[in-house]
């Protein structure tokens, strides 16, 4: 490309913890550029699609949240190996929907779902509560286009950035009807863009899977919901859905 710039494939590994594996699956999506994308990677470990497993990776994609002691150990071992540890997807970045479990007592869960059987389970944690995270790629699931862009940046030595502004701007660029006009609460104004407003374009309110945008105005947002007389219960359910606004509002 330019004289002096050399690109090396990323020695990458992908690991899943407590999750649905939907984010990993995205790695195999967007088929039109898939072979180009795979060409950028030297996949050292990716159990979901490959039997070849090596432990000499530089970049570890961590999918899922942590909810069992054995997962903590596994994650710490990965942290020791990885130069760059990536929280991959909403579960890894914020705890994700799994965190909804934390509203209940652990005992109650196990007894109700596995009567008469010992099942180990703990409070759901996001990755950064257990190990240091170098890079976060939020999304439920992650947006493959964004992942591709980030991987290209990593390969070419560019800086990796996520949009700082909220989803609304991408929503408006799609010329959508604002869901507030339809009488619904949408978390678009406080959620980090980058998904191309996929939910609101499908006429479904944003539930904030990408977490808060930079310097959000939560007070104004709560005020707006109140002023429009929208359901507070609905608001709380939405803010709690991915656990991404933890600490930014009083439930």
């Amino acid at each position, binding site marked *: *490309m*330019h*004289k*002096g*710039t050399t690109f090396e494939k990323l020695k990458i590994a992908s690991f899943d913890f407590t999750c649905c594996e939907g984010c990993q699956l995205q790695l195999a999506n967007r088929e039109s550029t898939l072979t180009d994308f795979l060409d950028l990677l030297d996949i050292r470990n990716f159990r979901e699609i490959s039997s070849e497993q090596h432990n000499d990776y530089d970049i570890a994609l961590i999918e899922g949240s942590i909810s069992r002691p054995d997962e903590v150990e596994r994650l710490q071992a990965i942290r020791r190996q990885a130069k760059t540890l990536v929280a991959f997807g909403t579960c890894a970045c914020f705890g994700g929907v799994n965190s909804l479990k934390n509203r209940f007592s652990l005992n109650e869960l196990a007894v109700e779902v596995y009567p008469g059987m010992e099942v180990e389970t703990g409070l759901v944690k996001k990755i950064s509560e257990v190990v240091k995270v170098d890079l976060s790629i939020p999304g439920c699931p992650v947006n493959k286009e964004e992942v591709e862009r980030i991987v290209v940046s990593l390969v*070419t*030595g*560019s*800086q990796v950035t996520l949009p700082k502004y909220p989803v609304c701007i991408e929503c408006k660029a799609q010329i959508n009807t604002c869901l507030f006009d339809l009488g619904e609460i949408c978390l678009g104004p406080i959620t980090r863009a980058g998904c191309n407003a996929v939910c609101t374009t499908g006429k479904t309110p944003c539930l904030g899977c990408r977490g808060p945008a930079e310097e959000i105005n939560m007070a104004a947002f709560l005020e707006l919901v109140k002023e429009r007389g929208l359901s507070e219960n609905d608001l709380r359910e939405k803010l709690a859905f991915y656990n991404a606004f933890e600490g930014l509002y009083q439930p």
Partner: protein
Amino acid sequence: MLDKRFVIPLQEINREAFASSIPDFNHRSEIMKTDMGYKCTITNIVRLTEQEKLFQLRIIDNRERDIFKFKPGQFLMLELPGYGEVPISISSSNSNHEFIELCIRKAGHVTSALFTVDEGSHVAIRGPFGSSFPMDEMAGHNVLLIAGGLGVAPLRAPLFWINEHRDRFLNVHLLYGVKEPSQLLFTYQFDEWELINHITLHAIVEHPTGEWQGKSGIITELFDDISIDPENTYAVVCGPPVMFKCVCNYLDKLGIPMNRMFVSLERRMHCGMGKCCRCMVGSTFTCVDGPVFNYWSVMNLKEAI
């Protein structure tokens, strides 16, 4: 089947025809490009410090090289394909038609990538853009060139101009302040500036380390070393935003008229042509109305400095 009578014909915009199709294009199409850049070869790279490199660029096309003319203080948009475009002040003499020099600090995305390329790489430039230092107006007077840190980069062009027209100026002082001695740029030219060009150089560092024999402190302390005739002096100030206020205030107190002090501002820019609006200060564009402003007009601009 389409009915030909009602089909709107395509009106193509041809690159060449475009320039002439706009009446008030001010004949600028001859010298500046608004979309497609001039392709250049990086002919030389000098590492000045840990953070700064001097890039020497040569426009490849002969005709384009001929028509590329700029004035001291102007900047251009430098494109590193694949990474992006950044505004950079031209740091060489405008009488040099062979190459352009840019002094660049590794600050972010594009500039870091620039630091990885080798000589011989190709980049593109658009421009030149923006206002310039009024060299002719300054002629016949004493000149204070005041630079903080990387601010010396845009001052190099007027410095070259003065050197080349040295007999048209009275006393010329370069006051130059940095944080640490290792950050001083162009030290290799200091002797030349002083001995050959008779420019009095005053350098000061905030945190003296190692071998540093010179003065230490902040840049305004350098004013103690020189006597300034406020009636007959022009000042050019370039540096981080915090510097402008204290230096200009000082000069103001000395009695130098505000319209004889010039500053060069920095803002985020994406076009260089007053279109993206990222660089606006009040109702002023840093890229079109600036980056060089006289202090009077900036003083009046809220939030400028």
